[in-house]
Each structure stands twice: as C-alpha cells, then as structure tokens.
C-alpha cells in the first residue's frame, strides 16, 4: 500500500528558493523535509507530512531536470521545456553557481582535475559541507575554468557573459580560475589564516596589473596567464635595493602614496628597507614557475 507515482507539473515553473537552497546544500529529500518542518512549513496551509514530502520530491525532481540546463546558463533562457519567469531564471543560475568560501579556500590553487575531485570527501568532512554540494561547487569551478581558460578578453567579463552571473560572483570565479591556472600554493599551514576573500582580492589585483590582458590592452591574449615578459622585467628591480638613491626615492614615493592609508604605516616606514629587499628578492625570482607558485608563501614567509 503505497504511492507509486506522484507528480505535479505547472505550466509556469515556480521555484521556491528555500527548497532550492536545501537542494543546493546537498540535503536528501528526507532531511529537507525535516528542515522545512522545523522552519514551520507545516503551519502554512495546514499541510501534513505527506504533503511536504510530496512537494519536496516534486521540487527536487524539477531541480534535477533543470540542472542539465544550468551547465550552460544561456540555454536556460531559450529552452522550451520549462517556462520559468525571468527573475527566477536569474535566481536559479546565481544560486547554482554561488559557492561556499570555505570550500573554495580548500581547493584554491589546486589543479581542477579528477584527482582533486577524489579529495572532496576529506574537504566535505573538514568544512562540514555536504559532499553533494562539494561536488556541485567543484564541478562548477571546472566548468567555468574549461570555458574561460582558452578565451580572450577580460576574465571577469568572460565569466559573466558565459554564465550570466552577477559581477561580484564573476569576480570570485575569476579568482578561482586564476589561482587554478597559475597553481599558486595556498594550502601551506602558514597561509591558513588567509581567507578566500584575501586571496580573491590578490587575484583581482594580479589580474588587473600583472596579466597579459592588463599589460597589453589589445585583448591579444587572455587574462588568465601572468605576463611572462613582465615577470622577466621584474629582474631589473634589483636596482631599487642596490642603488641607495633609488632606494630612497622609492621609499619616499611609496610612503607618499601610503601615508594615512594603512595602519602599520610607521612600522612600514621604519622597516622599509628590509621589506623592500624581501619583496624585490621575491619579484626577481618570479621567472621560475615554481617560484610563481610559491609567491604567496614567499610573501608571507619573507615579506
């Protein structure tokens, strides 16, 4: 004695964000029903457990069917299977591609390959994010990476264009892609105190000033790779340490720029010589890929 089949299909597909989020977070149907019950879904419309279960199942099925379309979000707007209001479409995409920063922090700088995918179990345990959700987020990273890797033009715009994401989310993806491409080492113990946001900011800066796209505005190449020539040129910076005059000039310029902008200004001013030397040492070594990868470790260790 059981319900063999139970479906509800509307001409307009209405997405309930609450349930969608539960699905995205990787909850099973039963867990989702429990959560909804706790959130007081039953008091609406005098619903019973069965009703909630059936509703959750229906919505989960809809999400599963939509998921295929979300892989390339531009399809969502001109597919015919579901009639979804425009604002729901935007929401569906944005939410699907949103990610946990804790999770992103864990995979930042790692190769987005099958190998890493196997580590998701551990990451899931560590971060407390459901494995299903980890997989979705990881697959999103890979998908975005694959699409924009070979593309020309500004990285953030490419992500926005292809995945119809908001600018802030696209920037985060740009950071993830950038880190994955350059394989910056971020997993060392010493770097643990840095959050995803910290790295994302750095990525933004690097993309803006250090990449091919940034140096050469002709969109000849993409934003993803650091400009080789530029890194090569960094060697020349040695003069800033070796030459006393230049060192002083550099110091005064930097201090002028940073005055009253950072809290540790006096410390910085006092230690400028050491700091500058350390930084320039790192900079001059950036010709080697290995050293590029260790950029952040070096910055923390020696900076």
């Amino acid at each position: 004695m059981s319900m063999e089949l139970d479906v509800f299909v509307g001409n307009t597909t209405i997405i309930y964000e609450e349930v969608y989020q539960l699905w995205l977070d990787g909850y099973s149907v039963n867990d989702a029903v429990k959560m909804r019950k706790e959130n007081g879904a039953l008091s609406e419309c005098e619903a019973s457990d069965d009703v909630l279960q059936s509703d959750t199942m229906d919505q989960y099925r809809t999400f599963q069917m939509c998921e295929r379309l979300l892989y390339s979000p531009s399809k969502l707007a001109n597919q015919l299977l579901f009639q979804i209001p425009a604002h729901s479409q935007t929401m569906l995409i944005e939410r699907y591609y949103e990610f946990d920063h804790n999770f992103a922090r864990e995979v930042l700088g790692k190769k987005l390959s099958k190998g890493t995918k196997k580590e998701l179990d551990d990451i899931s345990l560590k971060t407390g994010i459901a494995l299903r959700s980890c997989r979705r987020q990881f697959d999103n990273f890979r998908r975005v990476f694959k699409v924009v890797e070979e593309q020309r033009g500004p990285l953030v715009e490419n992500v926005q264009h292809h995945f119809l994401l908001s600018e802030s989310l696209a920037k985060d993806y740009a950071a993830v892609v950038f880190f994955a491409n350059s394989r910056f080492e971020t997993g060392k113990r010493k770097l643990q105190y840095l959050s995803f946001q910290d790295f994302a900011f750095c990525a933004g800066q690097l993309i803006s000033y250090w990449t091919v796209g940034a140096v050469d505005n002709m969109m000849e190449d993409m934003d993803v790779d650091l400009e080789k020539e530029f890194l090569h040129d960094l060697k020349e910076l040695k003069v800033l340490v070796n030459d006393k005059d230049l060192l002083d000039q550099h110091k005064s310029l930097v201090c002028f720029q940073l005055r009253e902008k950072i809290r540790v200004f006096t410390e910085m001013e006092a230690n400028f010589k050491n700091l500058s030397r350390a930084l320039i040492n790192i900079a001059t070594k950036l010709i080697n890929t290995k050293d590029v990868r260790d950029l952040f470790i070096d910055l923390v260790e020696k900076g």
Partner: protein
Amino acid sequence: MPGKLKAKIVAGRHLPVMDRASDLTDAFVEVKFGNTTFKTDVCPKSLNPQWNSEWFKFEVDDEDLQDEPLQITVLDHDTYSANDAIGKVYIDIDPLLCSEAATVISGWFPIYDTIHGIRGEINVLVKVDLFNDLNRFRQSSCGVKFFCTTSVPRCYRAVLVHGFVEELVVNEDPEYQWIDRIRTPRASNEARQRLISLMSGELQRKIGLKVLEMGGNAVVGYLQCFDLEGESGLVVRAIGTACTLDKISNTHTSASATNPCNSSPSKDMKEAGFGEETPGVPLSSGPPTPLRAQTFSSFSPSKSYSRQSSSSDTELSLTPKTGMGSGGSAGKEAGPLKALLRQQTQSALEQREFPFFTLTSFPPGFLLHVGGVVSARSVKLLDRIHNPDEPETRDAWWEEIRQEIKSHAKALGCHAVVGYSESTSICEEVCILSASGTAAILSSRFMQDGTLDTEHRLSRQQAPVFTSGAEKGEGDMGSSASLGFEDLMPPGCGFCHIPYDELNMPFPAQLTYCHCCRRYKVPDVLFTTIDLPTEANITGKGCLIQARLCRTKKKAQGEGNATAISNLLPFLEYELHTQLMNKLKLRSMNALFGLRIQISVGENMLLGLASATGVYLTALPSPGGIQIAGKAPSDITYEQHISNMQKKINDTIVRNKELYEINPPKIFTLDPEAFRCINTELVEEVIGSPIPEPRQRSRLFRSHSESSDEVSELDLSHGKKDAFVLEIDDTDAVEDIHSLLTDAPTPPGFYSCNTEIMPGIYNWTSALQMFTSVRVFRLSNVNVTNQGLNKVFNDLCENLLKSLYFKLRSMVPCCLCHLNFTVAVPEDELIQVAVTAVAMSFDKEQSLENGRQIVDKTLMKAITENEEQLQFPLELTAESSSSAFCSAKGLSEVSGPLPSARAPSVDYSSFTDRCSSWIEQLRLKAHTIRRGSIKTMSSLEKASPLPEGRSRSLRSNRSYAGGSVAVVKMTPLSFLPGTKIIKYLGIINMFFIRETTSLREEGGVSGFLHSFIAEVFAMVRAHVAALGGNAVVSYSMKECVFMENPNKNQAQCLINVSGDAVIFVRESEIEAATPQPHSASAHTSSSGEGT
C-alpha cells in the same frame, strides 16, 4: 482542388551529441507530407546547425491537407551505418486552412523522440497557398473553424446554433499488429502517433463536412476522444455543436475579418445552406423542413445549389441581423405568439435526430428552463472491428445511448439536452459507454436568426470590478432586463423553473414557488452538467463537491464480467448520488453545476467519482439539515453516539454556511433551527412509517443497458424514506456519514470548483497557474473490502487536493477552477487519479460585500496622499536592492542562511500582478477625478526610473542570452481574466507517446511522468507560439494512460491534450497607452511590501 504546402527548415539548436568520438552531430532533416519526402543538406559537426533550406513545396489535395500532419524528422548522418533518428516534429497544418486563423507557422519546435523525449529544437516555417474549391462534391471541409471552448468563443457572435454533430473512425491499433513483434518500440510508437494524428485529421474533416451540410461554419465544444480498445482496435470519436459564427468587428483586429463569409466561394455555399437546413425559421418559411435525414444525408446531385442559394438569400435579407435588434423583435412577439414560438422550437428540435448541445454556457436568453441531469450507460463486449471503413457496431452503440438520453429528456418535459458529453472506460474486453447531459428547454431565437452577443457576457463579468457598490443580483437583473428578455423568462431564476408538467411529474419531487419571482414552481434541488448561467441569482459562494466510491468486483471473463459490471452499476450510481446529495446538504446548498460522473472499471473493482460545483440558488428553497436516525433506539450509549454525530453534522452545516457566506434572505427560507426541530419530532414516524409527502430524491434520471440490450430503469427516489434521514444501522450509512465528515475544509484563502468560474467571485487578477497532477496508488496488502477501498480512494483524492492547496499557497487568495479529476484502474492493484486545473488569484478586499467602498476610500486616499504613499515603498526598494548587493559583496555571509533582503522574489509574479491591477485601479480612479490625477501619474512616472534601473542591474545578464522564449499561458477555462481574446488561431489537438527502457535511470515512474508532462506542455506552448499565439484556452488533458513494468525497468505513457490557441491582449493595454510606468511602479510597491 489542391493547395500548395510550403515548408522551410531554418535551423536547429541544442541538438544531442550523436557522435561520441567528436561530441558533435552531423544533422540533416527530412520533411515529409503524404508520400512526398524532401531532405536538407547535412550540416556537419554542429549542435546548432543552420540549414536555411529552400522552400520545400508539396502540391496536395485539400483533403490530404486536412488529414495529414507535416512530418519533420531530424537525423544524424552516418557514412557507414544507417542514419540515426534524433527525433520528430509533427505539425498540424489545419490552422492554416482557415482564413481567419493563423497565416503562417513559424518558430522553434521541440524535437521529440518517443524514447528519449525532447532532444533539441528546430526552427521551421510553414505556409499554405489554398486554391478555392468550387466542387460541391468535395470531401474536404477547409475553413470550418473548430473550438474546444464549450461556449460561444469570445470574439464571435453566434448567428445560428445548428446542433449536434458526431463522427467516429476506427482502425487497427499498430501496437497490436503482427508487425509489432519485429519492429522497435520507437517504430511502433511513431506508427501509432502518426495513425492517431491521421485519424483525428480525418475525423475533423468529416465533421467539418457535416457542419457545411447543416449550413454552419464552425464547431463549438468540440470534444474528441480515443478509445484504445486493445486487440479489437482503435476508435477516435468526436462530438460537437455546429454553429454559424460571426466575428464581432473589433478595432483591434484587421477589418477584413469582419465579414469572413464573403471571402471565398466555398463559404458562400455554406451560407446557401441556411434556408434548407435551418428548421427554426417559422415566421418566414412556414412549416420547417424535416431534419431527420440531415445528419447522414449525402449530397445528392439532384439538389441544385444555385436555386437554393437564391431562395436563401431572400430569407437572409428578411431576417434581422442587427445584434441587439433581434432581442427587440422577439419582445414584440410576446403574448399569444410566445406559446406558438415555443411550440415551434420544440417541434423543430424534436425533428432533429439528436437535439444535443455540447455547450455548457450559453448566451443570455438561450437557456429557458433546466429539467435535470440525464445520463445513460451501457456495458458492451468488445470484438474485433472487422471492417474499419464501416464502423457500424460502434456507431450503433452510441446511437442507442443517445436515443436513451433523448427519451429521458423527453420524460423530463424537455426538448433538448445541453452540456452533453460522452465517455468510455475500457478494461480488457469490457467497455462501459456513458453519456450525460442536462435536459433543458431552449429559446427558439438562436435556432433561427437571433444573434448572441458574447461581448455582453464578457463585459458583464468584468463589470463588478469597475462598477461600484451595486449588489450583484441586482446588476444581473438589470443587465438581462435591459436586453428585453423579461417576457420570455423571469430574470435570474427562469432556468430553475420546472419544464415538466406539475401534475404529471416524471418522478416524485417537492415543488415550491420560486423564491425570486414567486410565480413559477421550482424543484427543491437541481443537478446540472452545465456551467452556472451568468444571469443566475446565487447566494454566497460555491464549492467543489465530490462523491467517491470504490466497489470490489469478482474477476471474470467475457460475458460474465459484463453482466457483473452491469449489475454493480446501478448501486454504484445510487450511492454516488446519495453521497452527492448529503454533501450538498452538509454545505447548505441546493444546486449542483458541472456534474460529471466518471465510472472506471478495473479487473477487480469499479471506481466512481462524481464531481460538481455546489451553489445556493436563491430561487430554490433552502435545504434542510441532515438527520441521523438509529433503527433500534434502545441502547443509551448508542443514542449518545447518534446524538454526537448529529451534533457534529449540525456544527459542520453551521460552519459551512459561514464559510460559503450563505445567508439567504430570511423571508423565503425556513429557519434551519426550526426545521431541525420538526425533523427531530418526526424521527419516530420516519422510521418504518411512510411519509405523506415523499421528498424528491433525485434529479438524476438514468438507466443501464447491458450488452443484451435489456434496459433496466432504476427509480432513485429513496422509496418512501425522507431524504434527509440517514439510518446508521447498516454499514453503508456509517460509511456515508464517515465520508461526509472526513472531507477536510479547504484551507483559508482557497476556493475550489469544477466549473469555469467560481460562483460568487468576480474580481480575478491576472495571476494564474495551470497545472496537471497525477497520482498512482498501489493497493498491495490493502484489505480488499468495499470499505477499505473506499477509504483508500477517498484519502487519495483528499490528499491530492491538500497537496494542491499547499503547492499553490503563494497565490492565496485564489480559487482552483475547472478542477477536472480523471480516475482509472490501469492495473490490478493500481488506482490512478489525474487532475488538471487552473489556480487563479483574486482580490480579497473586493470580495467582501462592503469591501468595495472601503477600497474606494483607500484609493481616494492614495490619490490625495500619493506623495507619501508612493515614496515610502520607493525608498524601501532602494534600500532593499542596495542591501541585496551589499550582501552579495559581503561574500562570507552567503554560505549561511540567506540574507532576508533576497527573500521577497519568491512569489514576485503574483505580487506584481496583483499590484499592477491595484495600480491600474488607482489609475482609473485617477482618471475619473480629472485634475487631481495628474499628480498621481507624475509621481508614478517619477517612481519608474529607479525600479527599472534596479531590475536592469539585476537582470543585465539576460541580455546576453539572446531571444528568450515567449511566454504562453495555458488555462482550462475559456478566458483569461483581465484580458481580451482578439483572435482564435485554431484548435490544438496533440497525441504523444513516451516510452522508456531505463525507468530507474530516468528517476523512476515519477521522474519519467514528470518530464513527459513537462514535455507535453512545452510542445503545446511551442505550437501555439509558432502560430503566433500567446495562450491556450479550454485546455484539457483528455487521456493519460500510464503503464509500467518496474521489473523490466520499462514504462509507457500516452497523453492526449487539446485546446484553442489564441492571441489575447491585456485589457489594461487596450485602455492605457502607456502601461510601462505602471508595471514598473508595481515593482516598487511589491518589493516594498516584501521587505
């Protein structure tokens, strides 16, 4: 003579990967019509091929154009092996054959495969050049319009209603042919889809011919059904009402459409038919021509059409054709002429073979009196159809049933049957044929020259929204009175008056004088299959009433099985009827509309489901309560038990009265309290002793005939027992009472009905959601007793309803309209229930009787204080949008529970719609207040830039997506609230099969059916959009046959849907030149409310 069909294949998109090696597809397209096939070039290595083909031209007979679908197959080219089919698109080109409907089919169609579902889309262009056919012996009927809508379509006016048309065609089911053993499931499914498409084309053409013969130009209430008889074949049958429709000239449509009849010679011929085929022109042409031969008569060459056309021309010129003018002329005929007129109509109708009408709602003045429901059922043993060209047996079966219906109607003193429908239920080789309708007396006017103004109905329906104050009933009387119908029938109650002779009643009934006009007699209860007439006076609101019943049956074969079923049927119907009656009383109502009784037969059980919308007709007497009596009142605890139940019932009645706002005027009604007292006194007498005045038990008049043609009539009046007394000594009564009390009330904010609109609700907003829900219940381990089954079935329906309410909670206050349940017993232990309905929101404020004035006041306030009123929400928007962005920037928070600022978009659409209508009103109000309004308008416009900017920033991404898909609304109703239908583009009638051999991988049976239904919706929408439409009205899912074999990981489903493709425009768009700022400002206030 031929027509030229032209097709062009433009492009494809989202094609599936057919070549695993390259992850690409080498696609090409085959375009087939009849026996001619064209091919496009192969578009190599692309999932989004651009073929941009030449125009493929097919020169074909118009007969073929009507029958055949255009068949488009997308294939993957393979150099070494056979080409793989990706999928197909069938395009019904019928809409292009009618000058008034669509002119071109152009758009993206889903490529459908019966095994894989939708696989990408294809862009196709189709046109037809039709040469006019002058041959009067032709077999085609191009140009006859078909409508699923069971009322006069919105932008037409009925000049004449000719009557019933029916036809059926049979064929062998490809699934059961020998060849099916060797071919693939895909080939078999496609053969079936194609055959059914062909058959329905042929059926439509044949019906069209009959309509032309009768002199009509359209079929309204077209109802087509399939009988999958398995081994014995496949029957496609259809019924409808032939009409002559005239397009109402409309400033919004092309002027050329106003007089379509002159556009082609073939149509002139149709007009020519008038004189001969229309019997009801008694004033001008003496005794009416006998019509008996009409339906089946073939065109005999001896009939000279030229002569007839000249004579009919003169007749046409005699008959007044001026809209309302005819109402006046009818008025003059009052008095002695009236009786004569009625007699003549009657005789005219009687001469028709079947005076049946599939319409369920009528132009005012058409329906004079309603007798009650007539129904007939017959159990037949299926045998192989030997000669598909002569489907005599099936024809004879239906003929028999129709005769029975006709005689029932006659017994009720009625000459016509309205709201007529037919259905079947098949299990193995046993088939139950059912027909039902409402016996009625119709006005002669539309049988001759009357013009029906549908616009009138439309405007009346909208009227309460904009006119203030006036009590609804008065408004009705006013409107119908103004049309000059009062001498033909009293307003608002005329249809309730008994059509039969008071002294010679067909069944025992208690008659009282009409509570409205006090002049004519009315029955105490009225059951009908039609929609509530718009002019009817009702008290309070209506509600869905369902009687559900499950009866076990022994497994049997052949003749024995048929006998067993026909023995069970009367009891089933009787009990359903009792349940309906009790539930009606429990809700304190006295009439049922839209009654539909479905009986479904399975191997070991019979299911009965009766659905109707209960209302309180002001004209009918107030119903009494329900009295419970025990047979042996000896035991004290037993009496306690009874009085407990009695109390519960009484409480429920009181609660329901409140819920449905039933407060009939006291003068006319018996005080329920007093009535109850009388009843309690009577209890002693009731038991066993005859009551002097036996209450009328039944409006339902029916009979059953078996395969042996033996007709057994059943008197459903409860013997001599009072209808209100339930004895609980027998288990049946306990069950009845139980089921009475277990019906959960609808949650607050919800109403439900199975008619077009909810009686008592008028202020619909434009928010609507059409849906289909299907449930299948497995009965393993259920104690297979009647009671056990009943409970299961009852719970199944109740839970389904509950689930619907929950899912649609964001639309509250709303009403589920046209709730159409279909039950089936697909296998031994399975019960299947499918529901299609539409949820429509309405404005709560205005639904209150006096709320109107309050709203007016608030609106006035809003106008005078518009600055504060409007800028407040505006600020909120700014805040909420900015905070939304902040939260997006504050990335660390996002992982947790979502910021509240984002929440409001959940039920945005309904909000927006409601608000836009609110703003709309505000604007209207502003107009009436003249100068003061300018301020409001300006502030509204001021408000617009910001939210627009906001929405742009939120949706800026969408611009990348390219042309997004046009929205197509779907509804089972004949209209969309707040809109005006400006064009009917043709009928949509589609049949799909879906099969899978990987059921588990597709998400089990639910996943399989979920995607299939979604695909069907998508294909309907795509076809409508390609015709240039933006909505489907009168949509229905006629068939949903689901079969599964979980052990083999297989399932198969057949779905048949139909509806009318239309173009609508929002009424606000018609009136307002600048709707844009309003919708934008609606955003403002909605988000303001949301935060």
